[in-house]
């Protein structure tokens, strides 16, 4: 198997005569590979015929289009490759970069103000409000997971389990005991934190990828239990009719003692959206505030030390057991809060909402945002879900594009969108440094 893409020849001066023959050869090989990849899966379509047996139809048109695209794309790339050796920093004009740098300290504040006025600006647009609620929910999940992955460096692929525990806790407690949202919310958080401890204990000794796979297994176990424990969770049918939150006892209904009637407003279903939005925003801000404060406390510093080097951590006398367990429990607790909110927002939950894809999504938000960066989580979640909505009209291609975008972003910026990190604590002046300088847990291999 030969490699069709020799490394770009850097010794060539820019603008040197492009080797037409070599470019053609490259393009032909790429087209051949594309043909091999797509010949059967694109070129042939299988459908169940009237008798139930599979019948095949050929689709040579799309196949030819794919192969041609590969050929032309590679040819153009090969012909113009030497133009791309310009470092990226010259591509963006100096002025723009300076403006961005000057603006960046105020970015977080600006985003906060924007988040606060979203319901005012988009009051009439319940579709956008719903989208905003969804984005902030994922921002909150991202903040929660950021404690586990970004700060403590424990790779958790089953974070959705705590989200599920929170959601089901709220649904079951609220339905069976008739408690209100505000009583159930802490309970859901506490139960999720216990689930976090439950997961934390057995995996204390594991590191890196082993930890990842065990957490993934844990997430799947929770989902399968929810799916099969019919008389408690309703199995695949889920739980419906979960109580909605009320504004200090005033429900968001058109009735006489509802929110709108009490305040002399005309009833509008948007009120509930606005209320839900502010709940989740408050929860997310709480998570953010707690995280930022904890980073300055000994426990937060212990997390970051644990992420950098576990052995050195032990040598310094840090109790790695409690450090890891608190990270798991706290991260899980915030996941549980978000889960309770999710249940009350939709008023319906089923195990389907807690599949591995959700875990991957939240992890992607954390890693693509830049591990450990709160601002990165916000940016990544916003970009990702806006993108999702953009592709809503091409619904079946949505996840395909999502996966491809995930690969593309990580290839382009392996460190995530916000790849600088302010040290949590420093002697004189807090400076931003690239994460590469901090994190030495590089994968092996010739760089």
């Amino acid at each position, binding site marked *: *198997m030969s490699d069709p893409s020799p490394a770009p020849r850097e010794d060539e001066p820019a603008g040197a005569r492009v080797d037409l023959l070599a470019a053609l050869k490259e393009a032909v090989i790429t087209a051949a590979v594309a043909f091999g990849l797509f010949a059967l899966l694109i070129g042939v379509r299988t459908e*169940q015929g009237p008798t139930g047996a*599979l019948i*095949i139809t050929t689709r040579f048109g799309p196949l030819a289009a794919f192969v041609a695209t590969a050929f032309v794309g590679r040819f153009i790339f090969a012909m113009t490759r030497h133009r791309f050796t310009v470092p990226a920093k010259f591509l963006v004009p100096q002025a723009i970069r300076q403006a961005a740098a000057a603006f960046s300290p105020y970015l977080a504040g600006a985003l906060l103000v924007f988040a606060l006025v979203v319901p005012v600006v988009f009051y009439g647009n319940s579709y956008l409000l719903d989208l905003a609620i969804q984005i902030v929910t994922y921002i909150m999940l991202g903040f929660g997971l950021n404690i586990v992955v970004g700060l403590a460096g424990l790779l958790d692929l089953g974070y959705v389990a705590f989200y599920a525990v929170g959601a089901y806790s709220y649904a079951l407690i609220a339905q069976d005991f008739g408690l209100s949202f505000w009583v159930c919310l802490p309970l859901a958080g506490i139960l999720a934190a216990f689930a976090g401890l439950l997961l934390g204990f057995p995996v204390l000794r594991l590191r890196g990828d082993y930890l990842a796979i065990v957490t993934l297994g844990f997430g799947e176990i929770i989902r399968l239990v929810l799916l099969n424990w019919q008389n408690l969770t309703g199995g695949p049918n889920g739980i419906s009719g979960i109580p909605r939150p009320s504004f200090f006892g005033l429900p968001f209904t058109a009735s006489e003692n509802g929110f709108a009637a009490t305040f002399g407003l005309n009833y509008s279903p948007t009120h509930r959206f606005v209320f839900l939005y502010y709940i989740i925003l408050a929860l997310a801000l709480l998570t953010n505030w707690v995280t930022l404060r904890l980073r300055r406390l000994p426990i937060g510093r212990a997390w970051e030390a644990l992420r950098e080097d576990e052995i050195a951590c032990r040598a310094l006398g840090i109790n790695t057991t409690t450090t890891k367990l608190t990270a798991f429990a706290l991260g899980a607790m915030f996941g549980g809060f978000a889960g309770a909110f999710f249940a009350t927002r939709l008023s319906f939950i089923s195990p389907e909402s807690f599949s591995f894809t959700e875990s991957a999504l939240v*992890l*992607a938000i954390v890693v693509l945002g830049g591990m450990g960066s709160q601002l990165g989580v916000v940016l990544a979640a916003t970009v990702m879900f806006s993108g999702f909505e953009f592709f809503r009209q091409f619904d079946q291609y949505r996840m*395909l594009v999502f*996966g*491809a975008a995930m690969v593309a972003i990580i290839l382009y910026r392996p460190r995530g969108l916000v790849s600088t990190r302010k040290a949590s604590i420093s002697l004189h002046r807090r400076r931003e440094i690239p994460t590469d300088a901090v994190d030495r847990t590089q994968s092996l291999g*010739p760089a």
Partner: protein
Amino acid sequence: MEYFVQQLINGITLGSIYGLIAIGYTMVYGIIGMINFAHGDIFMVGAFLALIAFLVLVAFGITAVPLALLIVLLVSMALTALYGWTVERIAYRPLRGSFRLAPLISAIGMSIVLQNYVQIAQGARVKPLPPLVQGGYTLFEGNNFAVRLSNIQIIVVVATVVLMAGFSYLVARTRLGRNMRACEQDLKMAALVGIDVDRTISLTFVIGAALAAVAGLMFLLYYGVVDFFIGFLAGVKAFTAAVLGGIGSLPGAMIGGILIGLIETMWSAYFSIEYKDVAAFAILIVVLIFLPTGLMGRPEVEKV
């Protein structure tokens, strides 16, 4: 007793399929230390390629089962290997030397891409295939229960044993195998002594994908249906098998695969079929607590 023997046979067959997938995980993890999350989906792609290749052969009028099987096997191995190579080339190689989580995220993205690509290209519904290989032997009877060994089970186990033997030979005796073992020990040193590391890693992905394609074909023959989602669960279980056997160890992957297959089958046979996947994951967690390096793995010594 008869029931138990029957479950044993079924479990070993299923375990062989897991073992074949697990080899791909264990080799890649051994060499570059990453979980190739897309490997389960490569297996799924292999199963689809086998299905389509078979239907195309039937359309061309080639219906002699042994010949068709052989062609399907070769075609799906070759094309799936191409997928394995492409995934590595596009999504993993540029990230080599990058930080630890980057390849994993890239792999998760690739897994989503492959799943949805197959779903869009071939539809979301399950694809049934009439049983190609029929018949079997009744080993013995008793208590109104006949222990049967079907031909397809024989094919699965024999193919697995042959591939394992061939693959062990490749790793132990050939130049490529030596390069792979060198890369496993130390990538930088391997590069320094003149091993083409990129090529070796590529070939590792190619071989892993080809073995996954065989597993895919076996799965297709054994169960008779495939859909675009089979890769996730099979992939996670195969990774569990690799960890159980000791990651980086080839016989470990096979033994782990068979153990997972047996656990799953026995659990569904004697306890509850709903919780069979829970059993597999629970076993994984228990094993990792008491045997963090798996059954045949080397302890990971971390030097400061």
